[in-house]
């Protein structure tokens, strides 16, 4: 029987598939019969989904600007100049 206090600290790791197999199985079995811990698990999962959805929507079209590499070249060139001083 898994201690509830332990379960609550391991729920994040379970969500991330970072628990050893035996431990994960024990936690999952506990979740089947403990409403409170299962609710906690679902809430964390929903938060993950919210954040991932938001991140997906805000970054799906994100690309460097067309001038990115040219500007970087200029900065590298400036950096290579003798007596180069980085901007303050």
């Amino acid at each position, binding site marked *: 029987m898994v201690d509830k206090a332990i379960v609550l600290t391991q729920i994040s790791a379970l969500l991330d598939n970072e628990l050893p197999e035996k431990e994960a199985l024990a936690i999952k079995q506990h979740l089947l019969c403990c409403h409170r811990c299962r609710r906690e698990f679902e809430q964390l999962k929903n*938060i993950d989904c*919210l954040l*991932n*959805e938001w991140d997906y929507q805000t970054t799906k079209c994100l690309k460097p600007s067309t001038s990115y590499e040219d500007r970087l070249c200029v900065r590298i060139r400036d950096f290579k100049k003798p007596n180069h001083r980085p901007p303050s």
Partner: protein
Amino acid sequence: MAKPRYYLDTPDEELMLELQQGRDEAFNEIVGRYKDYSVRFCYRFVRDFELAEDISQEGFIRLYKFRHKYKIKAKFITLLSKILMNLCLDEFRKRKSYKTLEIDALPDGGIDKLNAHSLLGDESSPNPEQEYIQKELGEKIKHTLNSLSPRYRTVLILRLFHGYSYKEIAEIMGASLNEVKIWIHRARNQMKDKFSYYLKRCEVNGRQSHSAYSDQRTS
């Protein structure tokens, strides 16, 4: 006409060794491979496109500047991520004030309006009111993430948005596996506490969890 890529099949770590030998084309290949990743990485921290580009370029400059010190100790992407992460965190330190919105303040109309699941990414419903709430929710998420400590914010970004394993996160952050595990747990709980209305709504709707991503590592 596209420039020939001499180092197309060369592993990242070997490119750095080539760069050490003075071959700048190797550096150009690194930039070509990782500019998308680095801009996206920085954007996820600072949520400002121009600033993200600026920081990502600074990351490449650092790589170039300290190329002579490079040794193959870990994967190149771990090194690059570490450099970018530290630059982003430096940027946060410069900003002293974080505005934390009242997350539990509902839009007019109460809890019925806050149906984030159907609003986020629901491009088939361009209702102006929903778009407004969508934008509001996005701003709240952004500000809540910003209100976390840099450590908690970093682990969440690396885990949730980039899909790094705990071991990889520990390498990038220079932390132990146990520390990463504890930080992620606490960060998630802090986010959970600040989105209690959203979570109540999920329970009311019997929301099925889903994800719009399949593999964050490709992003």
